[in-house]
């Protein structure tokens, strides 16, 4: 039970921590400009105001240290004042068609797909997870916010954020979500040799009511949250492991008490104390071995169920990516910890077993 809980909760939080960390991957080395006070997770704005696209873009582009400026409209399926979902079901990202790769990098498309070329067209690229969930292929028509669009390609990537997104031309995004000439984030790439901090400083000096976030600053903003998640995770694990330790110790003490005669017999035969110790610790370790193995199976299933619950994706679709949700190294760590804790839980009962003497046991029984 303990292993199941630790794996289910631990794998889920570890997974989402990893997703948060990977959000920065797409904008590495760039300064992200958002409206002042906007809530940003890494490079993804999840709350706050909009920026006037042309004005802000031009102001930034006119700075001397800027190599490239890309305006992005990032839409989560939330209205103003709604509560943020733990894991949004999907995102829409609007990017100017000439700048696809400034955000997507070298991300390929599945066979038969292509990136949209018409800024005002109706073509959209979708993430693999969304496409698999709805059986979307290039050419499939999809309804987004009341507009009928056509899937032109499926992103072939393991990045969680891209797996669950619609990427479409910026103008199309502005149109269907009704944010004309507005964006909520602008990426600014500094010229070679110019540190991000210097560019960020000059942006904040020249453009009013914006925050220019360097990669370090974005990391610093999210770091306390990640640290807190990890601390909670560790705290829960420690608590559960301590409870398991006490439980295993109790079970083993009871088992040893029920077999007083057996341990006393071993003593009468002349078994070394180390042998008795090993027998009890081994038995406790076996509880950990079997319980740990079962717990990992059930825990992994639990983690998949949680992921399914949060994303509305059917459980079966998570099975191919089972080891991305519950990483094998994490499972191995938990398994070894459980075995070690159970062995530790066997120590006190083993010491009790070592003290049993046949004469005392028989005298107590007759």
């Amino acid at each position: 039970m303990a292993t199941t809980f630790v794996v289910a909760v631990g794998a889920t939080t570890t997974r989402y921590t990893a997703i948060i960390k990977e959000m920065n991957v797409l904008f590495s080395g760039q300064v992200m400009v958002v409206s002042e006070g906007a809530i940003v997770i890494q490079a993804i704005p999840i709350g706050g105001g909009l920026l006037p696209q042309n004005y802000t873009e031009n102001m930034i582009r006119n700075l001397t240290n800027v190599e490239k400026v890309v305006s992005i409209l990032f839409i989560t399926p939330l209205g103003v004042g709604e509560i943020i979902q733990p894991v949004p079901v999907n995102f829409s990202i609007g990017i100017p068609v000439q700048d696809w790769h400034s955000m997507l990098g070298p991300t390929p498309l599945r066979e038969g797909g292509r990136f949209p070329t018409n800024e005002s067209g109706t073509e959209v690229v979708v993430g693999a997870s969304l496409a698999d969930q709805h059986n979307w292929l290039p050419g499939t028509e999809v309804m987004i916010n009341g507009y009928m669009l056509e899937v032109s390609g499926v992103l072939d990537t393991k990045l969680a954020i891209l797996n669950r997104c619609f990427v479409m031309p910026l103008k199309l995004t502005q149109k269907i979500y009704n944010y004309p000439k507005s964006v909520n984030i602008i990426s600014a790439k500094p010229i070679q040799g110019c540190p991000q901090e210097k560019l960020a400083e000059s942006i904040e000096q020249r453009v009013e009511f914006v925050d220019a976030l360097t990669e370090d600053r974005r990391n610093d903003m999210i770091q306390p949250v990640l640290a807190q998640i990890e601390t909670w995770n560790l705290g829960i694990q420690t608590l559960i492991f301590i409870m398991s330790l006490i439980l295993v110790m109790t079970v083993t003490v009871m088992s040893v008490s029920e077999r007083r005669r057996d341990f006393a017999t071993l003593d009468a035969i002349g078994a070394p104390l180390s042998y008795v110790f090993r027998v009890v610790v081994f038995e406790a370790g076996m509880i950990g071995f079997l319980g740990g193995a079962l717990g990992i199976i059930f825990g992994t299933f639990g983690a998949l169920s949680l992921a399914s619950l949060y994303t509305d994706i059917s459980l079966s679709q998570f099975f191919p990516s089972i080891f991305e949700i519950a990483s094998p190294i994490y499972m191995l760590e938990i398994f070894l910890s459980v075995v070690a804790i159970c062995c530790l839980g066997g120590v006190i009962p083993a010491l009790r077993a070592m003290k049993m003497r046949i004469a005392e046991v028989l005298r107590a029984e007759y």
Partner: protein
Amino acid sequence: MRIKTVDLTRKFHVGSSEIIAVNKVNMEVKESTFIAIVGPSGSGKSTLLNLLGLNDQPTRGKILLGNVDASLLPNQERRKIRLLCMGFVFQTFNLLPTLTALENVELPLALAGQPFEEQRSKATKLLESVALENRLHHRPKELSIGEMQRVAIARAIANDPKILLADEPTGELDSKTAEEIISLILDINKKQKTTTVVASHDLKIIEAADITYTIEDGKLELET
């Protein structure tokens, strides 16, 4: 191996009262002798046997095994003597329930560091010698009482002990099975020259013994 006790005493404290289970016992058991110790229930037979088997520590007195005072030996040495020089047969057999008959007999051999193949072949031979060749892989609960006691005897003699101690070995058995067990113990005594001490009420054991002692209230006397 010769066993000699000098003023061997064992006292227990129950609440505020003191019980003298074995009271200044002086006895000598010569090598290869078959000794019977008889006495009513609670007379101190089992306590004396546990003292002789080094399962218990005397309150006072000496237990000489050969010329060594075993009562002064550290626990580790006493354990080694129990493993290599002594075999103990209990009234209630004390077989390990999770092990098969074969594994129960192999256990002392394994603890003595015998290689696995030797353990297996010797344990098999021992069980054959007590007519249990068809019960090698049965667990204790699948055996009859007489079979369990025979497995216990095979286990007790696995390491070719010089001393065999048996605490009421026929106490739980019917008369026919008891006779078989007595003749088995006698056979071991005669063939392997094992010094044998048996605590029992059984008249047949008393008849078979070279020397019989009676014990009452912890005091041992030679039966004449």
